[in-house]
């Protein structure tokens, strides 16, 4: 099967909607298809990566441990917007995985370099 460069763009906060959860499903299944996968977190999507999520009291499954499992699926390219981090008062130490911080100008190029963009 042809290999395409797929960029998963995450723009939504977790739990308020199910997009974050479904993006995880899609990334894991995409990895089975041996596609070249990169993840990008911009806007409120950054909040998906916040450490210390505890959903016990809202009775929704905590899906954040999945981000740490991505490495096992060879999904290693995780990018975040430096500007979006700053706008939300987030620092690298607040995030539960290692990420590469890119400027918004660099992200324009990143989107350009991919064959397909999946938006969540």
């Amino acid at each position, binding site marked *: 099967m042809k290999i395409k460069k797929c960029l998963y763009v995450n723009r939504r906060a977790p739990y308020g909607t199910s997009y974050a959860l479904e993006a995880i499903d899609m990334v894991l299944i995409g990895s089975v298809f041996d596609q070249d996968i990169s993840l990008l977190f911009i806007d409120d999507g950054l909040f998906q990566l916040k450490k210390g999520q505890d959903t016990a009291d809202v009775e929704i499954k905590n899906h954040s441990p999945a981000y740490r499992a991505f490495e096992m699926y060879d999904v290693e390219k995780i990018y975040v917007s430096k500007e979006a981090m700053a706008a939300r008062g987030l620092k690298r130490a607040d995030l539960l995985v290692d990420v590469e911080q890119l400027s918004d100008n660099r992200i324009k*190029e990143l989107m350009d370099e991919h064959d397909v963009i999946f938006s969540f």
Partner: protein
Amino acid sequence: MSILHTVNKSPFEKNSLESCLRYAKNGSAVLLIEDGIYAALAGTTFENTVATAMSELDFYCLAPDMKARGFSSSSMIDGIKLVDYAGFVDLTVEYEKVQAWL
């Protein structure tokens, strides 16, 4: 590889247009559909934002969505092009990929 960006949210309600413009590269295009068409109107607080972005990006607006909402080309910022659904399809062919700012 240039991108067709679609925006379907009113700029008065959501930041989809703002995000789109932040990440849209020179030479790509923005197509306003559904409630996104309100960004195409002249005389709003977003006119300046859109007019400035138009120096680097091509702007299109989906005519059926504009007509449904009671507006026509006479209400639009100069230089935004109206397309119908066939025109929307043609734009997705002309540009190499489509990014939906939902």
